[in-house]
């Protein structure tokens, strides 16, 4: 872990303490029904009361400007909050709203748009999320949902899925295909012609499928146009999702390590077997690479580093691979108990697979990194 200043250390300790006291894995487990799928009544897919609680502590305003009630504490700080929360798979829309939606408004919003939305996003009374994906794969350069110019505004037709935290969101930042390429629009959830339905995903988080059926928006809904803005917003999403995967993978590793130190077979702790020790040591090395990549990318956001796109894809690809490998090993090293819904290993595996696909798979980010670096 990088060296933190005093304020950051206090924040990190506060988050760890809160996670220990208020956010055990059983909260994420509570979103599942008995068969291992998502509960129908928990339709938002996240814990609204807990989100209000962390918003009251200021975590939803970490990236927001002080003029809009935020603390402007920086992406690096928000990154380790996301990481700590992801250790217990906390079902909270902090990444969607406090990282991605706030970034979108800071990067693209005019004064009126920022006034209208940032205060609510910062104090947690509004949840925002990015609606970018439409099909099986993250493909931000091949958007289908169209934004057609109409008198004094825009008309949207098409679908978006999966939209993370979309069932509880009050604001969608919609990436659409306009006449001049990518167009980003602010769409309140109650806009006429917009409907949403929950998707029962393996992590029980219930993202939304949005249908835009002749949704008409005013000119004031336009956040910005062009690839650079969309890419800049997505870079924040990539890095934030990578920070969550780092937290998930770190906890999956530590839980597995504890098991190696307590499980006895053949009259010995299985953690004394060299074959398993070496697998654990290798995983530890992968976690080190991943932590470095994630922390460097978070710092690059705060520094406005022109290398951010490359660093963001490096972080997401590394985090995807490491979380993938460690959640596989988590199940394998726990043996039969790791296959049961009763044990947490499966919850980590399922959440990991979702987060790996969210905002770009490993191959998406390796390809992006390769192009950015001349391969």
């Amino acid at each position: 872990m990088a060296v933190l200043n005093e304020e950051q250390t206090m924040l990190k300790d506060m988050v760890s303490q809160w996670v220990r006291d208020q956010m055990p894995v059983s909260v994420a487990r509570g979103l599942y029904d008995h068969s291992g799928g998502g509960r129908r009544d928990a339709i938002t897919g996240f814990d609204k009361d807990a989100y209000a609680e962390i918003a009251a502590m200021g975590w939803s305003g970490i990236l927001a400007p002080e003029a809009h009630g935020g603390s402007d504490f920086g992406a690096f700080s928000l990154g380790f909050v996301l990481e700590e929360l992801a250790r217990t798979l906390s079902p909270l829309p902090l990444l969607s709203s406090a990282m991605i939606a706030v970034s979108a408004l800071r990067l693209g919003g005019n004064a009126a748009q920022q006034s209208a939305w940032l205060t609510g996003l910062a104090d947690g009374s509004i949840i925002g999320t990015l609606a970018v994906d439409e099909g099986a794969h993250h493909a931000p350069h091949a958007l289908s949902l169209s934004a057609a110019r109409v008198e004094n505004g825009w008309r949207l037709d098409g679908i978006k899925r999966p939209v993370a935290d979309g069932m509880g969101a009050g604001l969608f930042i919609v990436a659409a295909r306009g006449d001049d390429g990518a167009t980003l629009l602010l769409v309140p959830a109650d806009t006429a012609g917009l409907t949403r339905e929950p998707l029962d995903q393996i992590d029980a988080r219930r993202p939304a499928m949005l249908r835009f059926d002749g949704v008409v928006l005013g000119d004031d809904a336009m956040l910005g146009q062009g690839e650079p803005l969309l890419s800049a917003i997505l870079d924040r999403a990539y890095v934030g999702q990578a920070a969550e995967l780092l937290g998930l993978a770190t906890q999956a590793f530590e839980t597995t390590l504890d098991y190696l130190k307590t499980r006895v077979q053949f009259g010995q702790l299985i953690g004394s077997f060299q074959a398993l020790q070496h697998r654990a040591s290798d995983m530890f090395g992968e976690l080190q690479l991943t932590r470095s990549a994630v922390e460097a990318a978070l710092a690059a956001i705060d520094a406005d580093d022109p290398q951010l796109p490359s660093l963001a894809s490096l972080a997401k690809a590394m985090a995807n691979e490491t979380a993938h490998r460690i959640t596989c090993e988590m199940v394998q090293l726990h043996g039969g108990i790791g296959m049961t819904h009763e044990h947490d290993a499966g919850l980590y595996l399922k959440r990991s697979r979702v987060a790996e696909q969210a905002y770009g798979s490993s191959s998406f980010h390796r390809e992006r990194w390769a192009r950015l670096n001349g391969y």
Partner: protein
Amino acid sequence: MEDQQFRQEVRDWLSANFPPALTGVNGLIFQGDAHAAAASKDFQVWRKAMADKGWGTPTWDKAYGGAGLSTAQAKIIAQELSAIGAFNPIRSYGTMMLGPTLLEFGTEEQRLQHLPRISTHELRWCQGFSEPGAGSDLASLQMKCVDAGDHWVVSGQKIWTSGADQADWCFALVRTDTSVKHGGISFLLIDMTSPGVEARPIVLISGSTHFCEVFFNDVKVPKGNLVGAVNQGWNIAKRLLQFERSSLSEVKTDVTPLAPIAHAMLGTDAEGRIADADARARIVHNAMRHAAYLQTVRRFNEEARNGGPGNGVSTLKNLWSGIVQRRAELLVEVLGADGLGWSGNAYPADAREATRALLHSKAFSIYGGSYEIQNNITAKRSLGLPDR
């Protein structure tokens, strides 16, 4: 302010004394090869200048040939050397490993005898640790050291001794008690010109003859050459291996970029990408891991400066060896048949060099504690996993 003054002093002195012809030259060439060092007039001028100044071993006391400077000042010298593409011509096994050991465990007499000639790099040292039967399990070493009254008598064999055929002295681990394993080892300084010492170079798969096997046949060694107490050698060796590991992790990490070579050898597609999609995917994967490795080195260094855990050296070494070995394999794969030449003009010189580098890289996960030993250390120290 004082630092700023000192930095200026270093700059002025370097610009007056560093031979410009050596700019950007890898100092390891001279460190590893006595003949190359003797043949280069520039190197000798540079070595002498640094030796006289004491800046090759800046933190050592002046009585030992150092300059009596603080660690902060030593760092400034290192930074200024690197800033102008210069290297420390005194750097050797002597300065990196034996020197710190004598400062910690040696007698004043031993320090005064050896350190001044290490700080001028007049004498070369080699490290006699491994034996044919004692590799990863180093403490099982058997080279006998018997008390013959007014001197020791040493007999046995060492192996993988870097530069032993060019070394003037050897610091060796010897067995002074056969009844216990770790507690029967002593640390001895042996003059390589003593009767009964014979060093034979070993030809490696890369063609290198840097490593030797060394035979000791009833070699007489003065009593005063034993460092620390009799049978205390294992503790000294463990400390010394920490010096070795910390200097290994400083290993330069800049490498030839693979992309231009891959473009040239494999062609490009319509979008300018490496045309062989399978090779490209594997090259990119390795390049990304390499980038994350460099970030990790920076992070560990920053954490260490701020008093971090500092137990990551084994992890770092395994990451480094794995990533660099893979990279060397990919480079030779991309070179195709051009990468299979041993000698001759039919093969481009840089391709032959890449191939030798690949063969040499196989040692990275063996020397300085093998991959397996490093993972044992990580499991125990970083992860707290139990012993059998």
